[in-house]
């Protein structure tokens, strides 16, 4: 009995056989937009919309509940998948997470969503740990990767640290894709997982040093860092924070004044994105290391930069330094509006060992004054946004 989805949070566990039964009902409920928060129900609605080739929206829980006669009788999940691949009208409308700035509406097709999905027999035994919100881009990438290979999806999103450890162990999770913030939750290491083969980082700036810590927990895993966005889906991957582009990928991007621009040919068919001569400004600031082949690393989100008295501060840079101090478990650097300086730099620090003074004098030796947080607070933990990213407010 191959499991399809397990979510201890909702006490849901469904096998592919059970999914097949639900897909063979004489009538299928196919709302035009998701109307559930239950992970299995959501996947079911998504798959049904693809089978019936009807557009689907991901947004606040909708109310419409259209029921259609089911013209199909599937003998296997493989038949379901081949049906889905033939669809022509299906598209998925969703909004960007808007971590910084207003959410934008984007529309994807099956092709744009599965551009980077790999399907083959070798992947049949993969077990995916889902550490993203299932309705967001990164979570959908995990869904398609797992479902199209008939893999089990084990939900890890929104669970406590102990539950995450327990679920990885219990279901022999082999692949995890998550934000650096999620991986930090696993520290300090509690167990070593030899069966995990792949660890993917994405969604936020890569944190130097975190990969080393993760190697202790997942000694057999391959590590990949993915650049993906709701606008473009997964675009390119790297080992670490340095991205080197192939000739094919190179034509999709250009760098203008330190900002990464993406060509419209790899974007979703969207109405809300502002294009300039077929290019979209991603808002991701990068540093070019080498021109040929184009090699760069990510520095920050453009609107993450904090203006302190006219000087721009990259909060990631300050966070990285503070994390180097012994006993600092996590940190968030953010700007607080200030009538005198525009913004004043603040830091929330998770640590029982260092003092405010130690942090400040350490930073003063490494950074100009305006980059040293003036207000430092010690907190038990750093809150995350719905997408599992650090919320900078």
């Amino acid at each position: 009995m191959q499991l399809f989805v397990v979510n201890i949070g909702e006490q849901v566990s469904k096998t592919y056989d059970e999914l097949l039964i639900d897909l063979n009902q004489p009538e299928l409920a196919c709302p035009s937009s998701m109307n559930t928060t239950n992970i299995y129900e959501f996947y079911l609605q998504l798959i049904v919309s693809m089978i019936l080739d009807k557009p689907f929206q991901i947004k606040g829980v909708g109310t419409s509940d259209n029921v259609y006669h089911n013209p199909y009788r599937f003998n296997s999940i493989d038949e379901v998948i081949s049906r889905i691949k033939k669809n022509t009208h299906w598209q998925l409308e969703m909004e960007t997470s808007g971590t910084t700035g207003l959410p934008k509406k984007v529309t994807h097709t099956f092709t744009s969503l599965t551009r980077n999905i790999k399907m083959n027999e070798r992947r049949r035994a993969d077990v995916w740990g889902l550490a993203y919100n299932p309705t967001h881009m990164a979570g959908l990438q995990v869904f398609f990767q797992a479902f199209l290979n008939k893999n089990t999806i084990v939900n890890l999103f929104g669970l406590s640290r102990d539950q995450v450890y327990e679920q990885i162990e219990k279901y022999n999770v082999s692949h995890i894709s998550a934000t650096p913030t999620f991986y930090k939750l696993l520290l300090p290491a509690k167990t070593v997982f030899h069966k995990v083969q792949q660890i993917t980082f994405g969604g936020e700036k890569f944190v130097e040093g975190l990969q080393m810590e993760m190697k202790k927990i997942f000694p057999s895993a391959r590590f990949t860092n993915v650049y993906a966005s709701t606008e473009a889906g997964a675009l390119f991957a790297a080992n670490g924070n340095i991205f080197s582009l192939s000739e094919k990928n190179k034509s999709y991007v250009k760098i203008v004044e330190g900002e990464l621009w993406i060509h419209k040919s790899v974007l979703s068919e969207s109405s809300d994105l502002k294009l300039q001569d077929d290019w979209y400004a991603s808002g991701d600031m990068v540093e070019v290391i080498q021109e040929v082949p184009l090699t760069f690393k990510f520095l920050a989100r453009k609107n993450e930069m904090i203006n302190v008295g006219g000087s721009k501060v990259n909060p990631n840079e300050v966070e990285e330094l503070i994390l180097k101090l012994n006993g600092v478990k996590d940190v968030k650097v953010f700007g607080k509006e200030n009538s005198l300086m525009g913004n004043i730099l603040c830091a929330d620090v998770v640590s029982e060992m260092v003092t405010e003074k130690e942090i400040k004098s350490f930073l003063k030796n490494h950074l100009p004054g305006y980059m040293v947080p003036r207000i430092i607070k010690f907190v038990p933990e750093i809150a995350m946004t719905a997408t599992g990213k650090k919320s900078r407010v």
Partner: protein
Amino acid sequence: MEKIIEIIRRVLENNDKTFNGTFEAQSSLRSDIGLDSLDLAELTVIIEEEYGVDIFEDGFVETVGDIMAKISK
């Protein structure tokens, strides 16, 4: 005024600065006490937390007495 002086001392200490003179109402925050813009910004945040008043919201604050006037409004 003691409370305000205590806060100013805290900001000085936080930033490894010392002021050996006497705090008076007419003491200039910048030229006498030696606070720079970033120190003053830090000072405003602490005072706002304590008193709910943004001392730099309208106009400029030059002396210890100016702060007193803002928070007593």
